[in-house]
């Protein structure tokens, strides 16, 4: 540690460059992670809110909630008890009264007494047909408590009576209505008693022709584009972490080569190679620690300056895991220089520079 720190302090510029590189890479890794998590969440938070185990959807829907319709005679046998909830989903366009702006939203039709009824952070649950609960992300479009909104160009206005949060599905905020309103929107009439899916809080098995029971995880992975998006981000993040290995490896190798004669002096003095290698790894830990630490600070600040519409989500657990991954990669990179250090001949101290 002593040698490691003294050397860094004596060659500040050189090591500052290493810190700066680590800082940039870590910041990019953290930023990409935040976007990945943010985007993923926008696809799924409404589903996460259910805290359910499985859903039953139409066998034709190819596991996609948005494509599923189940007629009453197919689901009525299973819609029993408090642990089962009917859900209707339809993608709609909403419009604030006296505004021309069209906003992509989801309508989730629910029974207000079921377990998937939204948790409110403000207001109350609807009592009439034309009352709705909306996700608080819609405040970015000025939709608040008591706002009047049109849905799919309806002639009547819906009144926002309750606000919920973290209810986003398929990258758009959710508007909760009762089942009848949903049915009118999707099927033109509240007389057809169709639903999109049955949500099960527990692992109860359902075996029915024409229906398919899938896990919540499966449901999320089949949100169109979700898996591809998660995969693309994961690849980018993994690539950056691996780049750390190369960059630190190359940096440290160059620095090591430049220090051969110095190492010779240390070896001649009787300082063991283990000490020199230890110092090398301490340096890497210190430099990556500082670089990643600064990146963490900046990412913490970044979220306050980003527009609310950017899907940025600070996942500190992921940051810590990635910081550790970057450190491990950096240490692995440092081990590229180890062979060189092991070969150092104390005699090189005599031969001079």
């Amino acid at each position, binding site marked *: 540690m002593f040698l490691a720190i003294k050397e860094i302090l*004596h060659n500040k510029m050189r090591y500052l460059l290493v810190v700066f590189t680590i800082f940039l890479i870590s910041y990019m890794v953290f930023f990409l992670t935040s976007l990945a998590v943010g985007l993923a969440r926008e696809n799924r938070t409404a589903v996460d809110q259910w805290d359910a185990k499985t859903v039953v959807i139409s066998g034709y829907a190819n596991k996609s909630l948005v494509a599923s319709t189940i007629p009453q005679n197919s689901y009525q046998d299973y819609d029993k008890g408090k642990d089962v909830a009917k859900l209707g989903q339809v993608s709609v366009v909403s419009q604030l009264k006296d505004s021309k702006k069209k906003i992509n939203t989801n309508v989730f039709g629910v029974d207000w007494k079921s377990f998937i009824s939204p948790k409110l952070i403000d207001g109350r649950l609807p009592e009439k047909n034309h009352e709705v609960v909306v996700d608080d992300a819609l405040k970015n479009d000025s939709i608040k408590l008591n706002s009047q909104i049109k849905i799919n160009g309806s002639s009547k206005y819906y009144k926002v009576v309750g606000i919920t949060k973290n209810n986003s599905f398929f990258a758009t905020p959710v508007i909760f209505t009762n089942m009848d309103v949903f049915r009118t929107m999707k099927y033109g009439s509240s007389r057809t008693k169709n639903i999109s899916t049955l949500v099960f809080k527990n692992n109860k098995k359902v075996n029915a022709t024409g229906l398919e029971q899938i896990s919540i995880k499966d449901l999320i992975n089949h949100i169109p584009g979700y898996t591809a998006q998660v995969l693309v981000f994961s690849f980018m993040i993994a690539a950056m972490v691996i780049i750390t290995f190369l960059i630190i490896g190359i940096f440290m190798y160059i620095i090591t080569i430049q220090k051969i004669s110095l190492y010779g002096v240390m070896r*001649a*003095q009787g*300082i*063991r190679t283990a000490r020199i290698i230890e110092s090398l790894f301490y340096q890497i830990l210190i430099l990556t620690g500082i670089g990643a630490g600064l990146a963490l600070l900046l990412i913490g600040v970044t979220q306050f300056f980003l527009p609310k519409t950017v899907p940025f989500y600070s996942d500190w657990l992921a940051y810590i895991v990635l910081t550790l991954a970057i450190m491990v990669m950096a240490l692995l990179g440092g081990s590229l220089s180890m062979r060189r250090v092991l070969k150092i001949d*104390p*005699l090189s101290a005599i031969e*001079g520079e």
Partner: protein
Amino acid sequence: MPLIEMINVNRQYGSGRTLVEALHPTNFVLNKGEFVAIIGPSGSGKTTFLTILGLLQSPTQGKIFVNGKDTSKMNSGQRTDLRFNKFGFILQASNLIPFLSVNDQFKVVDKFSRSKRRSRNSAELLRLLDLQNVANNYPSNLSGGERQRAAIARALYNNPEIILADEPTASLDSKRAQQVVSLLAQVAHESQRGVIMITHDTRLLAMTDHVYEMQDGFLRQQK
């Protein structure tokens, strides 16, 4: 028991037509309290001899005993520890670590010694070598003479039993050269250390106990 004993040691560089016998088979003994000088023209093999004695390189043939122990039976880690614990080097090229101040050069010795050793008082060493004013300087900020004296201070700091100096007075004026050599003599005689010094300056030989001359890889005792 001698501090170091060299038995039939030789050193060749290269092979075939480029083979150079830098050191012909040599026997040599250094006892406690002895101050030995090695003289000889450049390229005659003095440094080769000294670095083999100091376990910085292995001989082509022959054996070196340190305190009666056969160093050829040791692994390189054990030889490294032996260097750290028993030897002090004052080398032609600097033996200072560039990113450490003069004071920190001493600290490294304290940090890395496994056994509680008796190190010399660093303040006293600095005073003796007139380095008090530059104790916090890095080697690159020292004059040639200061650097040489710092190297000597570093070599003496771990209280080595054996001090090997390759032209330690090369960059010193004659007054300082006298001082350094008398310091080495004092270390040898008063604290019963063994000192070997390569030098070109024949005026300094008066203070030594023995003088050897190296010529074309042959070592001959003169005094």
